[in-house]
């Protein structure tokens, strides 16, 4: 009995798929960390009174949100040639850049929305006691806005995690790519894809559940 379970096509693919999951998580987490930095800057740029800064960040957000991530990663990987920038971009680097840009654009809107949602009176109260604009942002607006960003940021994590599956087209051996390689070799297509999806769900469902709890706790 145990032998049949252990020998089933579902279980056999696992070590191979787990290798892919590792890379999927590396791309997602690294991309989101850089994406958050980029998004925070771009989001504040979208709130800027300077027309130039506002313009640049708006173009960035609109271009990235308005084009498919698949096109973006093909562009980064194949479109930008080595002659052009002098270095060869590996598949992994292209994947991380694509997630960074993509998450950055969406996080910019998350940041802008969160800051915008803070009552104007908070800003005025800060300025009225003599805080500078920067201090008001840092001590009053940002901490409150950050709380409101947590649920949509968690959401972005789930979206970016799933987006990494697109990178199989540039031969990054993330989870889905590993699955495809495995079923091409074994012809166990159904069983392998079931396992791939289960592994995605094992990350996304608990994340959703945690998010819902956090949301309730923060009361946002």
């Amino acid at each position: 009995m145990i032998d049949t379970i252990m020998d089933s096509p579902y279980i056999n693919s696992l070590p191979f798929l787990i290798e892919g999951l590792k890379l999927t998580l590396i791309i997602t987490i690294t991309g989101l960390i850089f994406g958050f930095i980029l998004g925070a800057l771009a989001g504040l740029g979208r709130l800027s009174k300077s027309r130039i800064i506002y313009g640049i960040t708006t173009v960035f957000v609109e271009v990235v949100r308005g084009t498919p991530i698949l096109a973006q990663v093909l562009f980064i990987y194949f479109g930008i040639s080595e002659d052009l920038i002098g270095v060869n971009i590996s598949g992994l680097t292209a994947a991380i850049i694509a997630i960074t840009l993509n998450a950055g654009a969406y996080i910019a809107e998350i940041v802008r929305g969160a800051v915008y949602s803070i009552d104007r009176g908070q800003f005025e109260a800060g300025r009225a006691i003599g805080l500078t604009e920067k201090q008001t942002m840092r001590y009053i607006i940002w901490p409150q806005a950050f709380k409101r960003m947590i649920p949509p940021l968690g959401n972005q994590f789930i979206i970016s995690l799933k987006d990494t599956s697109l990178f199989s087209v540039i031969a990054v051996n993330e989870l889905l790519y590993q699955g495809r390689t495995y079923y091409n070799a074994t012809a166990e297509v159904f069983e392998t894809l079931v396992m791939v999806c289960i592994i995605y769900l094992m990350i996304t469902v608990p994340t959703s559940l945690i998010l819902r709890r956090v949301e309730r706790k923060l009361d946002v």
Partner: protein
Amino acid sequence: MITVKDLHKSFGKNEVLKGIDAKVDESEVVCVIGPSGSGKSTFLRCLNLLEDITSGEVTIDKETVNDPRTDINQLRAQVGMVFQHFNLFPHKTVLENVTLGTTKVKKLDANQANELGTQLLEKVGLADKANEYPDSLSGGQKQRAAIARALAMEPKVMLFDEPTSALDPELVGDVLEVMKDLAREGMTMVVVTHEMGFAREVGDRVMFMDEGVVMEEGKPQQLFESPQNPRTQEFLSKIL
């Protein structure tokens, strides 16, 4: 203490203040009354430059508020402001609300700031709420905390923008008591209010504003009992 000369304020094409002249002496309590939309809140907000001034001049303690050379943050630190909706910082405790400006603007160290903050919370009757968050306070307590926050900066002037308008009637009294104490201690105050009782009892002078101008001003007794301007008479007959 405060001098306002020919103050104009427009929002786009809409002129809200159409030339205001006013003077507030040291330790004087001036109450500003008038119908909604008369520009009284905008007038108050121009005094500490929460609204840009379109033209005219405002000086507080000999410093011109709308002079680009004035350090507006230093000036605002000396002008306390209390808002209709309190605007307490919800992510900070009551005591932290009070001490934030003293540590970041006045650069007091944490001990001094906490000591001063605790004293002020005692003064407004909130010593037991120091470590709670604003959400757990009643409206009247919130407004008293907001007053303590403004006082922590040791301002020369306090501006009140309809401080009791958002409060349940039974909570208004406590806030007015704190304000009366301040007036007795000699604080210079400008109070935009609908509390005619307070204006009459505590105000040294009352300004009646309508349609962006000061229609009439005078001692409370005179303005309330024998208003000269027909608009003042009409307004008072509606609310008294």
